[in-house]
């Protein structure tokens, strides 16, 4: 997994709640058997005016000038600030892959859908939950200030604004440890191989029907 170092980057507001994984990466792009290359079709139906198909070159497609990610001032953004229940819908990890591939390192929202939230940590994309009032304020400030940047410090668990307002966020200690060190979770789990085997043997003797 990619190591998460601190992030100091341009922020972009996506002022909608319930942004679902179908919107983040439409299903026609899920046919790829690769893990990379999804960024060019992130939010495809919102970013482009025509319908995207796998293999279609973005160069020749018409951008939707009204979609926030297309505003010149937000080019190169690394932090997405959005509303409640971000990432709801399917379990597709293609959604976090697409966000990361596009260049995002941090997503800030008042709440996330469970599976999406989980998936982000597996690839080194950091989802941060902040109070909805704080998110409200951040969105307003980003919209009002060109070049608005946020500094994220994972070690200290803080988000700092350009005017040095500092917000604390919670993160599970195990996940934090994995992110900071870029640890391979499978490798970590396999350190418990003996325990897993023991558990399995016991289970098989107690509930043999699970093993037929």
């Amino acid at each position: 997994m990619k190591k998460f170092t601190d992030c100091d980057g341009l922020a972009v507001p996506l002022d909608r709640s319930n942004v679902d994984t179908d919107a983040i990466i439409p299903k026609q792009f899920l046919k790829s058997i690769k893990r990379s290359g999804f960024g060019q079709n992130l939010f495809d139906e919102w970013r482009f005016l025509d319908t995207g198909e796998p293999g279609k070159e973005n160069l020749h497609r018409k951008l939707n000038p009204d979609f926030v990610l297309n505003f010149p001032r937000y080019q190169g953004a690394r932090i997405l600030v959005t509303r409640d229940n971000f990432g709801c819908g399917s379990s597709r990890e293609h959604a976090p892959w697409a966000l990361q591939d596009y260049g995002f390192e941090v997503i800030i929202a008042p709440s996330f859908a469970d599976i999406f939230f989980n998936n982000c940590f597996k690839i080194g994309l950091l989802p941060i939950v902040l109070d909805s009032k704080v998110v409200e304020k951040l969105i307003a400030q980003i919209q009002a200030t060109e070049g608005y940047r946020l500094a994220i410090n994972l070690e200290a668990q803080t988000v700092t604004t350009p005017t040095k307002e500092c917000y604390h966020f919670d993160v599970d200690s195990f996940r934090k440890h994995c992110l900071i060190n870029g640890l391979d979770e499978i490798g970590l789990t396999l350190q418990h191989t003996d325990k897993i085997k023991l558990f399995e043997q016991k289970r098989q003797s107690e509930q043999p029907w699970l093993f037929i």
Partner: protein
Amino acid sequence: MKTLYDKLWEAHVVHAESDKPDSTVLLYIDRHLVHEVTSPQAFEGLKLAGRKPWRTRSILAVADHNVPTTNRKNGISDPTSQLQIETLDQNCDELGITEFKMNDLRQGIVHVIGPEQGATLPGMTVVCGDSHTSTHGAFACLAFGIGTSEVEHVLATQCLVAKKSKSMQVLVEGVLGKGVTAKDIALNIIGKIGTAGGTGYAIEFAGNAIRSLSMEGRMTLCNMAIEAGARAGMIAVDDTTIDYIKGRPFAPKGQMWESAVNYWRTLKSDEGAVFDCVVTVNAAEISPQVTWGTSPEMVTSIEGSVPDPESIFDLSKRNDVESALKYMGIKPNTPIQAIYLDKIFIGSCTNSRIEDLREAASILKGKRIADNIKLAIVVPGSGLVKSQAEQEGLDQIFRAAGFEWREPGCSMCLAMNDDKLLPGERCASTSNRNFEGRQGPGGRTHLVSPAMAAAAAVAGHFVDVRLIH
């Protein structure tokens, strides 16, 4: 005093980081269901790391999302879909994983075939790279969707790194009205608690209305738990559960069956067990439901109307409703019954089982779809559901009514194959998501029960199925 969720959780903890109730644990996985869309990168990762599946026999694989629902003999016309399915076939063949290939009679939607085969058994942890894995909770399983990295993790270790959720009990008491189904209960609950209402929770559905549901109905309900934001939905074991499983190919037999049943009977919440949150619903008050917007919580009853954004005080809510109505092409205050349709889709892991098809067929018998309906399709959940329906003559009823009778798969639930809406087209769908573009770019989806979809097909617009019943 333990909840069903407590029992399922505790029975699968291999290792806990600490004694705290919210400790990160290694959770053992009994059944791993695999499909073609979320697995290729996991198999590749496994191979690159030089690892092998931990327990091949725990895995059951099937291609469902991409498969065509017509002319299967001609193969798959879309080369990218074909490559994805071939990749699954290859991975399964290479590793010795049981897979129902596209032309196998047992092929179908992953959440239909697991229970149908008896591969989903009470007390199991069931995972799949698909959010609607919650379906299997109908069998008192702890079942939930996972991402591709986790698919690889389960392949390699038979475990997941997990943290316990909070518990919610949804109590549905009372008798459902005639023509009102599990789908209506699900949509009603989501309308009540919202699509994020269940976030952070595992939901147990209980109450006498739930006990009266068939296994098909229970699966529909647990299937939609994810649309309420919950990680998992589950229902305690009773005779209905046990009767359904008996004699299925993967189910235990003989002496083993007896001991299994004895254990399964313990899979219910203890009297007096405490939940973090309880929601109660009166079944008798539920009318047939229809969604009008672009999120399953944007739902009302068949007697209702579409809301008026002007009357919504909360600004961000008002924006959501406004943009949903704009996308859906519906004016504020429109009565649901005045919404006319272009297409009808009966299928998906929510509503494509035999009972669903029987329900729809009972409405369609001797009738024809309205002239304004351009296409109406039935996509059975599996090859076995399809052949059962054919034995009962349901296919004839559907065909005579003007429906197309298709091959099993996900089809227009997510439109990864050729079955999709064209921009602006409006569809009554028995699936589970009405997100923008879900059934095809620019397509407009209204979620309903199979009976309501059938009634709408005949009328050309939404009607109250209770008046037909």
